[in-house]
């Protein structure tokens, strides 16, 4: 049984990584049209090294994703606590209000933001992108942390409080450690939402100050070259090393079992 389960996880990983491996491989293929047969070349990595615009866009993306992830996780977790640990009137309405940002296609949200930010004087630029990204990421965080809260036993907090803890104390000693896997998961998602967000960034970026997905999206018409594969591969491998390194050397228990 154990062996079957592990084999299954391995199969799912193969499925998830198949296109990623293709992406990485094509970064080393000489053909600009991604044509087969495969012909090894580091040409795209050399091109990339001279493409300041793409590299700068890559850095912008990372900064934006980190900030988005931090802000959205903090705010979203607080809201989830209210929505799933406290009862008040209008709670269901507030939960439903989380859905429009997810359901309405980003293209519409992006257009709406562009027009609205123009009217209100927020304008465009990295600050506008940050505002947009955080807003898009919050519903994901609230829902993921909310799931954690729903399945977590509230009686532990109550027990702690009945033993004389203040709510704040109970939160930091009992709730937070139990909720940590959900919060870390939510943060990873917020990061992904921001990193992959092209439509809204595209509308809200200013000339000369873009993010990587925007560069990719704008390049569609002309055609994106394997340089895009190269930088995507570098980004992925770098984040893999950082995250796995973090998981390896940090105190265990963050994402894992914290029952």
């Amino acid at each position, binding site marked *: 049984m154990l062996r079957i*389960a592990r084999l*299954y*996880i391995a199969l*799912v990983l193969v499925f*998830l*990584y*198949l*296109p*990623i491996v293709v*992406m990485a491989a094509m970064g080393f293929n000489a053909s600009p049209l991604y044509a087969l047969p495969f012909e090894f070349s580091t040409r795209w990595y050399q091109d990339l090294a001279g493409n300041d615009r793409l590299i700068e866009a890559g850095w912008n993306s990372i900064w934006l994703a980190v900030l988005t992830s931090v802000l959205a996780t903090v*705010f979203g977790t*607080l*809201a989830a606590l209210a*929505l799933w640990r*406290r009862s008040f009137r209008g709670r269901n309405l507030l939960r439903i*209000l*989380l*859905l*429009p*940002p*997810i*359901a*309405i*296609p980003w293209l*519409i*949200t992006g257009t709406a933001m562009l027009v609205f930010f123009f009217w209100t004087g927020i304008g465009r630029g990295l600050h506008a992108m940050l505002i*947009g990204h955080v807003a898009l990421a*919050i519903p994901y965080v*609230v829902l993921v942390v909310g*799931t*954690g809260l729903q*399945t977590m*036993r509230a009686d532990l907090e109550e027990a702690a409080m009945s033993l*004389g*803890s*203040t709510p*704040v*104390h109970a*939160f*930091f000693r009992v709730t937070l450690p139990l909720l940590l*896997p959900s919060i870390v*998961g939510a943060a990873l*998602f917020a990061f*992904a939402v921001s*990193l992959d967000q*092209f439509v809204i960034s595209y509308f809200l970026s200013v000339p000369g100050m873009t993010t*990587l*997905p925007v560069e*990719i999206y704008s390049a569609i018409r002309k055609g994106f070259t394997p340089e*895009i594969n190269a930088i995507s591969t570098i*980004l*992925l491998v770098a*984040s893999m090393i950082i995250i*796995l390194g973090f*998981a390896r050397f940090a105190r265990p228990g*963050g*994402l*894992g*079992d914290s*029952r």
Partner: protein
Amino acid sequence: MPAEAGAAGAPATTRFRPPPWLATAALLLPSYAWLTLAVLLPLGTMFAFSFLEATPLGNRPVEWTLRHYRAFHDQPYLLGVAWTSLSIGLWTTAICAVVGFATALALVRATAGRSRETLLILLLLPFWTNGLVRVFSWTMVIRGGGFLDVAARSVWPDAPSLGFLYTQPAIVLGLVHGYLPYMVLTCYIALLAIDDAVIEAAMSLGARWPTILFRILVPLAMPGLVTGAILIFVPVIGAFMEPRILGGRVGVTMGTVIEDQFTQAFNWPLGSALAFTMLAVVLGVFATFSGVLRRTAQA
């Protein structure tokens, strides 16, 4: 747990207890103020636009109309498009639910400690690559003569082409790949909270694994499944990149129709009317769904 005291991890001797509503408001305020400013108000503006005769920028006179909400009536082919989108959404969600739940279960039951953390991160990491690049890579795998065919023919040289690019299954494949991590994570969070003792008790009472699965694990993990379903079904209905790139001729969905209204037709009112109709349908589906769930839970 008042937010304003939260930062310092206030000592247990704090006497000040703010009224509960104030604490609730303080917890909600940052998120909802941000959401209102950045998403809800702009979308509200778009909602208002959907009742206009034409896109309201420039010097056109403002004329109100309901006609864009009659689109499904005036252009009946849209019903077919809506049905395609719904079925793509349902297939994607169902496949993600089965595969994702099983993955989460395998993670929680068959791995532990550091290797589990590592595996979970590995499952979520593909999400950090650009969606466009990922979808594009799929086209190279599943097109006739692509990697799938090359692999098949290396085993059996006369294999017929397995390529299925530009079909509905291709769209579903791309969407499942993009959204599976949501389901894995939400189910994982839910399954993690289930006490081993419950399962051990059931087993000692002689319960077989299907009983444990369907009577204990699935119901207890239901919040995770539901959240996962929301996070997948809702955006998939409006997806336009995957249908366009993987669907070829059959890639016409509500997402692409709406996108066309914004990029080609410059008909924002119709585009947003369609989007808000879609939102209403999605909310309706979930209202019915959660009603059914509640009733079965009570039964």
